[in-house]
């Protein structure tokens, strides 16, 4: 039997890292933010550009999924019309906990320039929003900064405590 004298806690002893459960879980959550492809208008083009090779969302672990059941974050990219409001609510309800929402661009934040009868004046009237991203449309760098901010927010959360599901009401 080998008689190694290994100090496991020492740096470089063995690939062992001591940490807390919270940090491990939040590390996993914050670095695999799979986003729902939810381009509603021109902001969707910027969101696609963020995912493509030049800006490359994959290096942050953000991969676009076409199903709400596989997504953690919903990026509301574009104008939300009143006709569509019930569908965004339905898709949000289908996402598994824990889930986050980034409201991207002026239209999703406040209704933007569409000060009319047919536009929802801010998607936070329908779903709870974690991060509002200004711009019309925000550049891909801004969306990446928003995702990094969301990662910081997730790392601050308690992972183990029974999570209270987010509800608008």
């Amino acid at each position, binding site marked *: 039997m080998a008689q190694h004298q290994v100090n496991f806690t020492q740096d470089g002893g063995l690939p062992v890292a001591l940490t807390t459960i919270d940090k491990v879980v939040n590390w996993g959550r914050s670095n695999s933010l799979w986003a729902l492809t939810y381009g509603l208008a021109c902001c969707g083009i910027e969101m696609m550009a963020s995912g493509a090779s030049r800006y490359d969302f994959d290096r942050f672990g953000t991969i676009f999924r076409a199903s709400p059941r596989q997504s953690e974050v919903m990026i509301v990219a574009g104008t939300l019309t009143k006709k569509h*409001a019930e569908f965004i609510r339905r898709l949000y309800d289908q996402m598994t906990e824990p889930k986050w929402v980034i409201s991207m661009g002026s239209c999703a934040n406040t209704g933007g320039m569409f*000060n009319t*009868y047919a536009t929802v004046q801010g998607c936070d009237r329908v779903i709870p929003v974690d991060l509002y991203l200004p711009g019309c449309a925000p550049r891909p760098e801004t969306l990446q900064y928003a995702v990094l901010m969301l990662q910081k927010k997730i790392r601050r959360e308690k992972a183990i405590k029974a999570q209270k599901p987010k509800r*608008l009401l």
Partner: protein
Amino acid sequence: MRRYTPKDDVQAKPYYTDRYWVAPQVPKTAVSEDEIFAADLAAIKAKFEVADAYIQVEQMVVYIKPEDNYGVLELLRDELGYTQLSELSAIDWLADKGQFEVFYQMLSMGKRKRLRVKMFIDENQAVNSVEKLFRSADWSEREMFDMFGIKLNNHPFPKRILMPDDWQGWPLRKTYPLQGDEFAAWYEVDKIFGKEARDIIGPELRDPAEVNRYDTTRFARLGYEVPKGTDISGGEQKKGLELQEEGGVFMIEKFHEEKSVIIEDRHR
């Protein structure tokens, strides 16, 4: 000339209020000046009653009786060569005349002419559908029904096309407010959460341009973030963009700009 009014607060007004100003008309000429149009008009007049006809911007405008619209468009398509219906909609003249003006914009590729058939209908009068003649009329007529509430006879699928099926009101009528009536204002709340949620969610905020940069409960300045609710009337400290927490992140290597290499020659 229109009377001058200051335009400073035009953004704050809900919508343009000078709605009864009558725009100057483009000059009209007699139909007899154009041989092709004169022949077309004679062919229409032989079978149907024509209230008025003139040429405006090289296009003939013909006013017919509303019950003749199917027959006139059939005549134009089959005998006069106007094989395309490029547009169809209505104009709201309810305030002036108590009537809608329905128009059909026709195009003849052979004659290289455009012709507009117009008719006046009362508020609750139904219109004969021309969907059997032109497939393009299908959606246009549904849009006309959706926006003005004009009902259609013999339409295969008379349903709203743009607004939701359970919508109330006709949005393109002049009497419809631009920002919606009470039904429109609470539509998504009523539908998703129910009427009892109105008090909790609150009315719509209709001033999207309102940004108070000292309101730190609702706004944050990029690179100058402060904790929520801090008083920043005396100015705030520059923090710079922080992509990570101060002490680094567990198992994530921090990006060092000085260690990275910028490739100058993109064709290397």
